[in-house]
């Protein structure tokens, strides 16, 4: 090194007050937006709670395990147990059908069973399922699914009236299928290729690799997708209302009509007045709490599974 060429001095350029202000402005803007979301959530929760207050005072926690829903003036009694039951059971059945189907589809679409071009088309079609409005699903259920079920069950001499827990659960399963498939496929596709090669390199078969390495490695993403789908199934309104029969009773038969909380709200809100509005608001509050529990549970499971690895 010679002293002839001194290195340039470190830059002494200062940021102008305008630039600094711009930074602060940006920070403030994002903070406002974030706070806005929080406020919105609180506002919704508060509104539901305030409107539900007369019912909460009147029925207390007994609301949760009372099964009669009678809005006739003078003989009013409100309980949400059949709807909680209907919400949980219809979502559970939908999951039971959609999880194996969705995960299977995701595996099929993330492995190279078929050429990439066909796979791309199939992925697009699965995602298209999510774009169909739920009222269309309801119509499809009424005009296609219910007659098909009627014919099929008729083969075994089983009487089937139509709107029922079964019909609603089946349509729910189809509606949440794209969520499970898309999220599972993404988490499977995001796995490092080294994992797959490592397993094959040890002499594992494709099935061994899928079930012992790939699925365990992607499990937190898959569970996350399933939980998101569960949340969707519990809150789904339109298609369920059209198919479930809206009967506020608990029946163990899947062929009998039933009801869910969101479907109850959709059906009764327009004509409700007085304490019935409060009772419906109380039911809505129960639904919000239920989905909140599902979300917290999902987060906990995902964390638990991630911590394991």
């Amino acid at each position, binding site marked *: 090194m010679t002293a002839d060429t001194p290195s340039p001095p470190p830059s002494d350029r200062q940021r102008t007050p305008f630039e600094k202000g711009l930074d602060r402005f940006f920070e403030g803007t994002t903070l406002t937006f974030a706070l806005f979301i929080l406020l919105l959530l609180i506002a919704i929760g508060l509104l539901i709670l305030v409107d539900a207050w007369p019912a909460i005072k009147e029925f207390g926690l007994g609301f949760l395990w009372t099964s009669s829903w009678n809005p006739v003036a003078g003989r009013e009694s409100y309980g949400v147990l059949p709807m909680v039951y209907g919400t949980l059971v219809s979502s559970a059945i939908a999951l039971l059908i959609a999880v194996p189907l969705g995960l299977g589809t995701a595996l099929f679409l993330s492995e190279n069973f078929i050429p990439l071009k066909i796979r791309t088309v199939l992925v697009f079609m699965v995602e298209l399922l999510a774009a169909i409005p739920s009222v269309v699903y309801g119509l499809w259920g009424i005009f296609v699914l219910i007659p098909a079920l009627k014919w099929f069950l008729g083969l075994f001499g089983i009487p089937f009236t139509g709107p029922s827990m079964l019909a609603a659960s089946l349509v729910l399963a189809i509606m949440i299928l794209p969520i499970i498939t898309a999220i599972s496929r993404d988490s499977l596709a995001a796995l490092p290729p080294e994992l797959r090669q490592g397993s094959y390199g040890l*002499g594992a078969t494709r099935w061994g690799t899928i079930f012992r390495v790939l699925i365990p490695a992607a499990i937190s993403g898959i569970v996350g997708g399933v939980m998101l789908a569960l949340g969707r199934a519990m809150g789904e309104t339109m298609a369920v209302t059209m198919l479930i029969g809206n009967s506020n009773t608990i029946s163990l038969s899947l062929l009998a009509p039933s009801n869910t909380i969101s479907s109850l709200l959709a059906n009764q809100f327009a004509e409700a007045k007085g304490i019935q509005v409060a009772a419906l608001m109380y039911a809505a509050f129960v639904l919000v709490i239920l989905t909140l529990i599902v979300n917290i549970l999902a987060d906990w499971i995902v964390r638990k599974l991630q911590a*394991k690895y």
Partner: protein
Amino acid sequence: MVDTMPKSGTMTDVVLRAKECDIYYGSYKAVRDVSIDIPRNKITAFIGPSGCGKSTVLRCFNRLNDLIESFSLKGKMTYHGQDLYAPDVDPVEVRRRIGMVFQKPNPFPKTIYDNIAYGPRISGYKGDMDELVETSLRRAVLWDEVKDKLQESGFSLSGGQQQRLCIARTIAVQPEVVLMDEPCAALDPISTLKVEELMKELVQNYTIIIVTHNMQQATRVADYTAFYNAQVTEEAGGKVGYLAEFDSTEKIFNDPEQESTRDYVTGRFG
């Protein structure tokens, strides 16, 4: 033209043999006309500039290239005289006998114990699993470092430990050949030395082929060295890899026959 055998040194047993192999990805010819004999219980190093096809050839030996859809091979690759690409050969069986260690340590998201037990379990190992896990880890010189935390995740280990875990995992299936694709590329010098010592241990029981970019490494560990080179062509892809020279490591590094080998090992290109 290259001879199948290394030019000097006596070769006893040939485990793997490639004969006039051309390797294609779709219509792109990646490697042309490779003929090589891999001797038993020796370490053979594949060296050469990037894109010369050394990893590609390595992956053909345990049919890992089958995972790439457009891959195809012309020519013959045999394992103890048996054609590796015969239609009745099950690639799963091939990979059990010819194991592979990768460039990046790739432990499974499982416990250390399960990482080792994975291979034996899928191949239906009936013996004492605890013992097999211990011997495999001992052979990979990792046992003392992990014996108290076998139930912890494989990811809890350092990079060098992870790579030795992957080696232990590979030898737990008791293969005959271990293919190593730049096993030390992601490791620090101390871990690298450990893996190299491990290779010298293992070669008493296994046949090892190692792809390396590190020429010192080849001189330190390899009995034989194959120098691959790339050649510019008119076809799509622009260049094609070929085996330029195959000889004892000493000969390749001190007195190679080809000009290009000499230029490469003295650091004039690559």
